């Protein structure tokens, strides 16, 4: 028994070293990336870009299901974005609330016939509406088919070569679209571009815009600020130098429409449609040897509300991990397949062995360590020191993300916010991380049982209560 436990423990240590060495590689690669992107963002002549008619036209796709409370504000904010050629398509995906009525009243909608061929099959479209007051707006009313189906209906109706999927509750910064098109101006063969998603909880929101970024005082949303910084600022930036990540956030990602049409749009039976669509795009483009880039650009920002309760957060994380497992299983043929080059040999293996299996390995390691300690076959000081090092490493990665934020965009200007960021980055690995491991572990036995739904997300909405004064922050 002791030999078996010892061997497994050794395997666990090797896994830990390999995974964390890879994180270190990403960490190093993120430095030149953040430097380059910060310089380009600072030097950009926004005024000139706004006046130029060269920037490719963009359609914003907004799937909406029971979003009556926030839809008017969200759509108004999207229509006011600074971009010359813009179209917003809102898809009312069989809402049972007053989403469509709110849209009708707020934007003086009138029905129009359909003027486009249905390239991707979707649930039945009941009607199309244009607005008398906002010419850039198109509303599709369709039968419920889920978020992916709603996005597909919007892709069908889109007139422009670039589409950007935005959640109805996402607050997109006024200049984010101009910034998101930077890779096109730099002459790259872009298939998709990802922007940064940040946590809106606790921020001051006015007229659908975040006017002051704050770090929430409450632990759960606060610690997610650090998580999002880590995921976007060093995780995805590091992948820029390795052929692109497998994830472009569903809340804020730009895609070339023709490629989405070519792969048949979003899959309606996928648990996490954004991950699935990016993997399929990589597969389709690489199989056809079409040169492409899928860069992540850190300065275009969209703000989103994150769960404030452990119950909702656990469901969200479980769903995300279920999506990852399902996608890795479905596209396992890409693993170490020379046809898919760097994606097959680097990106997919990382997501498969690193991201997908990590909670499983961590849990097994923990159980075996406890068993080893109980049987007296593991040296107690060694075990304690090992855990200390793993925790320290996790803390270092989080602090690194905070350091990147401070060296680049510095969105959280108040000293109190920086202090909270440092505090959350320091304590994240004590308790919170273990909870996320448990939530992600649950995904393994949930993966084949559950179907795909829109998921539950209790939204507080961006009201005056989000202002610092009302939420009690200084």
């Amino acid at each position, binding site marked *: 028994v002791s030999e078996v436990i010892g061997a497994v423990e050794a395997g666990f240590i090797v896994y830990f070293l390999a995974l964390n060495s890879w994180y270190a590689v990403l960490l190093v690669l993120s430095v030149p990336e953040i430097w380059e992107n910060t310089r380009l963002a600072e030097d950009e002549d926004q005024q000139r870009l706004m*006046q130029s008619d*060269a920037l*490719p036209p963009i359609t914003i796709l907004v799937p909406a299901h029971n979003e009556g409370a926030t839809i008017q504000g969200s759509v108004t904010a999207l229509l006011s974005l600074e971009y010359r050629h813009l179209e917003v398509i809102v898809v009312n995906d069989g809402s049972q609330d007053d989403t469509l009525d709110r849209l009708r009243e707020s934007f003086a909608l009138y029905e129009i016939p359909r003027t486009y061929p249905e390239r991707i099959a979707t649930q039945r479209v009941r009607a199309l509406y*244009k607005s008398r007051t906002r010419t850039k707006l198109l509303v599709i009313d369709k039968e419920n088919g889920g978020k992916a189906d709603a996005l597909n209906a919007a892709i069908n109706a889109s007139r422009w070569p670039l589409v950007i999927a935005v959640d109805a509750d996402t607050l997109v910064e006024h200049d984010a679209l101009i910034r998101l098109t930077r890779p*096109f*101006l*730099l002459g790259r063969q872009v298939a998709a571009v990802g922007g940064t998603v940040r946590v809106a909880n606790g921020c001051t929101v006015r007229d659908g815009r975040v006017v002051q970024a704050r770090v929430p005082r409450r632990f759960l949303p606060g610690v997610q600020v650090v998580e999002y910084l880590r995921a976007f600022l060093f995780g995805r930036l590091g992948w820029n130098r390795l052929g692109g990540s497998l994830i472009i956030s569903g809340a804020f990602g730009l895609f070339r429409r023709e490629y989405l049409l070519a792969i048949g749009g979003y899959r309606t039976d996928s648990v996490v449609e954004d991950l699935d669509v990016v993997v399929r795009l990589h597969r389709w483009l690489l199989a056809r040897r079409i040169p492409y880039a899928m860069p992540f650009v850190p300065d275009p920002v969209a703000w989103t509300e994150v769960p404030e309760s452990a119950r909702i957060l656990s469901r969200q994380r479980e769903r995300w991990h279920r999506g990852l497992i399902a996608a890795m299983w479905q596209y396992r043929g890409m693993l170490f397949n020379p046809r898919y080059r760097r994606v097959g040999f680097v990106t997919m293996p990382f997501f498969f062995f690193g991201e997908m299996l990590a909670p499983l390995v961590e849990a097994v390691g923990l159980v075996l360590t406890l068993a080893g300690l109980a049987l007296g076959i593991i040296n107690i000081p060694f075990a304690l020191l090992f855990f200390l090092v793993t925790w320290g490493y996790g803390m*270092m990665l989080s602090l690194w993300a905070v350091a990147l934020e*401070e060296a680049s965009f510095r969105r959280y200007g108040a000293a109190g916010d920086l202090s909270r960021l440092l505090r959350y980055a320091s304590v994240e690995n004590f308790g919170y991380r273990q909870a996320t491991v448990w939530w992600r572990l649950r995904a393994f036995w949930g993966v084949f049982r559950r179907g795909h739904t829109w998921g539950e997300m209790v939204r507080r909405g961006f009201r005056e209560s989000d202002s610092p004064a009302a939420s009690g922050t200084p």
Partner: protein
Amino acid sequence: MTSLETLLVVAIGQGALLAALFVLIVYTRWYAQRRAARIQPARAALDRAMQRWAMGPAGENEVVAALARLPPVVATDALATWSSRASGERWDALARRLAGAPWTRTLRRYAKSRRWWHRLDAARFFAAVATPADAPAILGLLADEHPAVRLATVPAVARLEDPALLEAELDRLPTLTPTVVGYHAGLLRRARDALIPLLLARLRADQPGLAHYAEFAARLGEPALRPALTALAGHGEVEVRIQVARALGGYPHGESQAALVALATDPAWQVRAQAMRSLGRLADRASLTLLGAAVEDPEWWVRLRAALALTRLGPAGLDVLFQAERSAAAGARDMARLILGLPPQALAEFSA
């Protein structure tokens, strides 16, 4: 060394790194605030000096002195902001004056730096205040390995209107993506007098990368380019014909109309669709019959463009659509119904 000792060393090293990270984060915040506090008053003083200079004949010395008090990169930012607000001649005079300022020598030297961000600073500086003496440095930056540097250099080319620089810019057009070509066209419009003769020389049937030049010409939309574009209507390359069909819609001229009529029967549907759209823009009633026939085209997009073009020809065009609505051809009938069902506002948008 035992494994426990090794781990202890790792832990101690990690602790030191964590402490260093904490210090780095706090120091970065402190340094940024201190720098902003130092620069902001100087930048505000420059803006005040610039305002006075822009409004009256005097004040150039004050501007030059205020610029010298700023770090070169911040001064370049200020120049980039103000270059679009000041009048041409006075700005050129300021640019000549700045050519001798010590801080600008640093930026000029940056043009040959090994660091791309320094070269980017140089490009931005040249974009704002380049003088003819800077042409060789700008030529080098136009061929820079970093795309952001090349992009930032284009306004400097437009500013100097130097034929050698414009030739270099045209040389690399075929290697650029359509978005970048469009952006360049917008910037280079300012140098049209020097640019058009050079571009005309490249709008020849045997010119390599002709489609890119035709696209560039279409985006410039200069009347002097019309005859050359019309002559390319029968070119063998589809992409060239598409660009010509698109461009000719901007030239209300008998020759454009005749060329578009020929392109309306092109074997490639993309050319036909573009020709229909341009015929709609020209809105010449002579194309009524042609557009009516195109509503029965086998390709959906051609039918759509033809039907939309008919709506721009007034009652006569609508009559043709009403006839198509009763046509035996299902495609034409459906398209006519679709377009006739659109409210005027939606119609205007779809035609755009």
